C-alpha cells in the first residue's frame, strides 16, 4: 500500500474516504507523507534552530524560552518512538505527540506554549524541583550520591563489572534467571557502541574526561553549554567534547538558508523545486488558516453529492414505478383496437402505434 501522497489535500481526502485502513500508517492513520508536510517539517526544524540560535545570541533574557523550547525539541527526535508506543498501547496522548511532532517538527513550534514557557528557567526549574515529591529518587533524602569527580575518574570497566555482580545478586535473590548474565541485568544493558565511545578519548578531552565520559557532572561542565544563560557567553559554539554546533553568528543560519536554497534550486534538486512549485498554494492556504474552510467545503460538497445522488435515485425509482403502473393499467384496459402481428413485424416509419393499428373486424 502506497503511503506517499501528492498533496496534503489528497491525504486529507483519502483519510475521510477511507477512515479504516492500515493501522500503522497511511492516510487512515493520519500520516501525511506528502511534499507539503515534508517541507513544513524541514522549515519548522530550521526555524527551531534559528530561533534557538537567535535567542541564545540575544542573551540570557530570552534564555528561558530557549530552554523550554529546546527540551520540547527533543520530542521531535523521539516522535517516531512515541508514535510507535502510542499505536501499540493505544495511548492517545503519545500518539498525538508523535503525530504532532512529526507534522510540526516540535511542540515548541506551535507557539502556544509561549505564555507557559516565559517563566521557565533552565537552572531555576530544576534547582527548585529536584526535591519535589515527583522526584522519587531524591525524595526523603534518599537520593543517590552525586557523581563526584573521584567517581568519574574511575574505570568504566570496573563499574560495569560491579554493576553486573550487583544485578546478578539482586536477580538471584528474586528468583530470576541469572544464567548467562551477559544478556540480563545491568551488563546486558550496557550499549556496546556507547561504552566504546566513552572509553575512547573524545577530541580535545583530558584523560580524566575520557575515562569517565559517561559522567555528566564532569564531562559537560567542561563545555560551555552553561554559558548559554550568560548574557555574553556563546551558546552553541562549544557545548562540550564532540559537540561542535556552529555559533549562531558564525553561519548556522546562513548554512540553513543555503540548504533551503539548494533544496529549492531546480538544478541541484529538480524534484524539490517541482514539488514546492506545485504545493506553493496549499502551503499558503495551510499557513493562512484556510484549511478548516477547505475541510468544511469538502464536507459540504460531499453532503451535497450524497443528497443529489439520493434525489436522482428516487427519481429513477419513481419513474420505474410510474411505468410499471402505466403498463399494468394498459394491460387491463380494453381499447377496442386489435393489433395485426404481420404488420407489427414490419418496419413502421409512420409511428410506433399508428401503423400497427387497424380497425377491429
Amino acid at each position, binding site marked *: 500500500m502506497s503511503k506517499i501522497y501528492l498533496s496534503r489535500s489528497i491525504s486529507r481526502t483519502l483519510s475521510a474516504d477511507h*477512515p*479504516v485502513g492500515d*493501522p500503522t500508517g497511511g492516510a*487512515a*492513520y*493520519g500520516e501525511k507523507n506528502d511534499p507539503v508536510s515534508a517541507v513544513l517539517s524541514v522549515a519548522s526544524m530550521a526555524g527551531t534552530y534559528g530561533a534557538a540560535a537567535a535567542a541564545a545570541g540575544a542573551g540570557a533574557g530570552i534564555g528561558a524560552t530557549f530552554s523550554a523550547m*529546546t*527540551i520540547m525539541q*527533543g520530542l521531535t*527526535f*523521539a516522535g517516531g518512538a*512515541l508514535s*510507535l*508506543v*502510542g499505536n*501499540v*498501547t493505544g*495511548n492517545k*496522548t503519545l500518539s*498525538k*505527540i508523535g*503525530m*504532532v511532532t512529526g*507534522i510540526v517538527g516540535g511542540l515548541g513550534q506551535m507557539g*502556544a*506554549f509561549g505564555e*507557559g*514557557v*516565559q517563566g*521557565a528557567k533552565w*537552572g531555576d*526549574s530544576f534547582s527548585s*524541583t529536584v526535591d519535589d515529591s*515527583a522526584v*522519587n*529518587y531524591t525524595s526523603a533524602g534518599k537520593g*543517590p550520591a552525586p557523581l563526584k569527580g573521584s567517581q568519574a575518574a574511575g574505570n568504566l570497566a570496573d563499574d560495569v563489572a560491579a*554493576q553486573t555482580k550487583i544485578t546478578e545478586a539482586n*536477580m538471584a535473590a528474586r*528468583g530470576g534467571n541469572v544464567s548467562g548474565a551477559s544478556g540480563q541485568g545491568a551488563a*546486558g*544493558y550496557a*550499549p556496546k557502541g*556507547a*561504552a566504546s*565511545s*566513552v572509553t575512547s578519548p*573524545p577530541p580535545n578531552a583530558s584523560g580524566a574526561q575520557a575515562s569517565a565520559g*559517561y*559522567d*555528566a*557532572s564532569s564531562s*559537560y*561542565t567542561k563545555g560551555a553549554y*552553561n554559558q548559554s*544563560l550568560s548574557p555574553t557567553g556563546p551558546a552553541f559554539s562549544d*557545548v*562540550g567534547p564532540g*559537540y561542535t554546533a556552529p555559533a549562531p553568528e558564525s553561519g548556522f543560519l546562513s548554512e540553513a538558508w543555503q540548504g533551503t536554497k539548494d533544496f529549492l534550486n531546480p538544478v541541484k534538486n529538480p524534484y524539490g523545486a517541482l514539488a514546492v512549485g506545485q504545493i506553493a498554494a496549499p502551503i499558503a492556504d495551510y499557513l493562512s488558516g484556510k*484549511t478548516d474552510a477547505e475541510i468544511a467545503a469538502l464536507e459540504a460538497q460531499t453532503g451535497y453529492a450524497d443528497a443529489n445522488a439520493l434525489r436522482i435515485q428516487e427519481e429513477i425509482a419513481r419513474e420505474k414505478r410510474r411505468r410499471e403502473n402505466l403498463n399494468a393499467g394498459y394491460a387491463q384496459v380494453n381499447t377496442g383496437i386489435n393489433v395485426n402481428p404481420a404488420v407489427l413485424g414490419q418496419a413502421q416509419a409512420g409511428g410506433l402505434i399508428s401503423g400497427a393499428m387497424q380497425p377491429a373486424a
Partner: protein
Amino acid sequence: MANGLIQEKMARPEGDDIDTETIKKNIKMPPELQEAYERVVIAGMKVMFSKESHKLMLDELQKEGPLGQKLGMGIAGLMLLLIKESNGTIPPEVIIPAGINLITRAADFIRKSKLEKITNADIGDAMEVMITTLLQKFGVEPEKLAQMLDQFSNENIPAEMGA
C-alpha cells in the same frame, strides 16, 4: 470517544513487547547530539544500576501504585537529577529522548528480572507521565499541553485517532 472505530486502549494485541532496541531505532538524534544523548543514557544507567543507587530504584518500583506511574515519575526524577548534577550543561534536546530510552531499559530490566509483570500499556503510561512531568518542570502545564495537542490534532488527525 464513545463510539469511534478506534477507541482508547484499543490497539494491537499484546504480544510484541516494546523493548529497548525497537525504541532506539525510532529515536533519531541529530549527529551533533548523538554523543551527548548516549552519555546521558549511560549516566542514567549508572544511577539505575550502580551499587550506590540500584536499591533505591528497586525500592521505588516496589512502592504502591500503578507501575507505569512509578516508572514514569522515577525516570523523570532521574533526568532531573542528572540535569542538576551536570549543572544544567546537558543539552536540553536530549533529555526526553534519553528518558524514553531509559524507560525501556528499566522496563527490560523489570521484565527479565521478573520483579513485576510489565505490559506495553505500562510502558506507554510511563512515557506519558515522564514527558508530562518534565514539561511541567519547564513551565508547560499538562492542561496547556493537552489543549494544544487536541487543537492541533483535531485539525490534522482523523477523528478516529484524535480526540
